[in-house]
């Protein structure tokens, strides 16, 4: 059976890799950002819980 899938050129693969890295960095950045925002918002109250 003939393979009719699209073969990406090296340039297209480079762009795809760039997009993947950008998405990964953005998602990781968002996770860190929301973690830090949570810490700042809770502040000292994070200690204020029943043991």
């Amino acid at each position, binding site marked *: 059976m003939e393979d009719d899938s699209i073969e990406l050129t090296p340039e297209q693969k480079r762009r795809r890799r760039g997009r993947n890295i950008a998405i990964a960095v953005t998602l990781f950045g968002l996770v860190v950002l929301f973690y830090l*925002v949570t810490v700042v918002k809770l502040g000292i109250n994070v200690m204020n819980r029943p043991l």
Partner: protein
Amino acid sequence: MSLVDERSASVATSDWSGGASVPDFFELLKPRVMSLVIFTALVGMVLAPGSIHPLIGAVALLAIAVGAGASGALNMWYDADIDRVMLRTAGRPVPSGRIEPGEALSFGLVLSFLSVFTLGVAVDWFAAGLLAFTIFFYAVIYTMWLKRSTPQNIVIGGAAGAFPPMIGWAAVTGSVSLESLVLFLIIFFWTPPHFWALALVKSDDYARAGIPMMPVVAGAPSTRRQIVLYSLVLLPLGLAPWWIGFGGAAYGVAALVLGLIFVALAVDILRAGDGPRARKASMRLFLFSIFHLFALFAVLLFERLTAMAIQVFA
């Protein structure tokens, strides 16, 4: 045929380049517009009474910037058909075929949601509501409706660019006030003469694309008169922060000098008419207007930061 299909078909003749690069997507955010949005929002935040944690403030700025970028992406998605016939915009990612219309639409929608959600959860839901309204106003009211239907497009649409300092203010206080309204009005009345100065030079481009910009519809002489009128309104408005009291003496002097130069350059456009100096006079006002707005907000920022530093070290 759905709206999305229509937009896709309008640029269907462009060749698929095999996937956009990261800089192409960054270009969709209109980074130059975004930089002015960040700066004016920052000034709104710094001027607002009260305090905000530096990290929360940074998140607010990031969200406002991304929200502005998202509306830019939605604008480029919708306007791809007219962008490709205008020399100034033909090289943008969608009309040049580097980004598919659907990709630009998804990118804009995802970033719109993310920016509003982040601003709401991390900072303030009222500010997030204002940001959502700003994105809606720019993408729907201005881009989809006003831009192609009335020469007053950038007069009313200018509100979208005027909201950022108000959102910055709301991020700190959770409300709007007379001060933030004045900052809004300065940008609102600055926008028409700023864009019309450029439109006078690029009127052929706009006419080719069928956009009813003021010089295309009302003619250059009428546009020049209106530029002068708006510059005369902008002069006292620029002084309002000093008059109300949230701008100091340095701001008052700067606003007066900058406002008078603005009026002088606007009058120069009127005097140049259609003569050989016309293009130069228009471009001079266009470039000065960018400096004018930047300088007004920079002086306000400088005064407030100086006052804060004195308070800390006194």
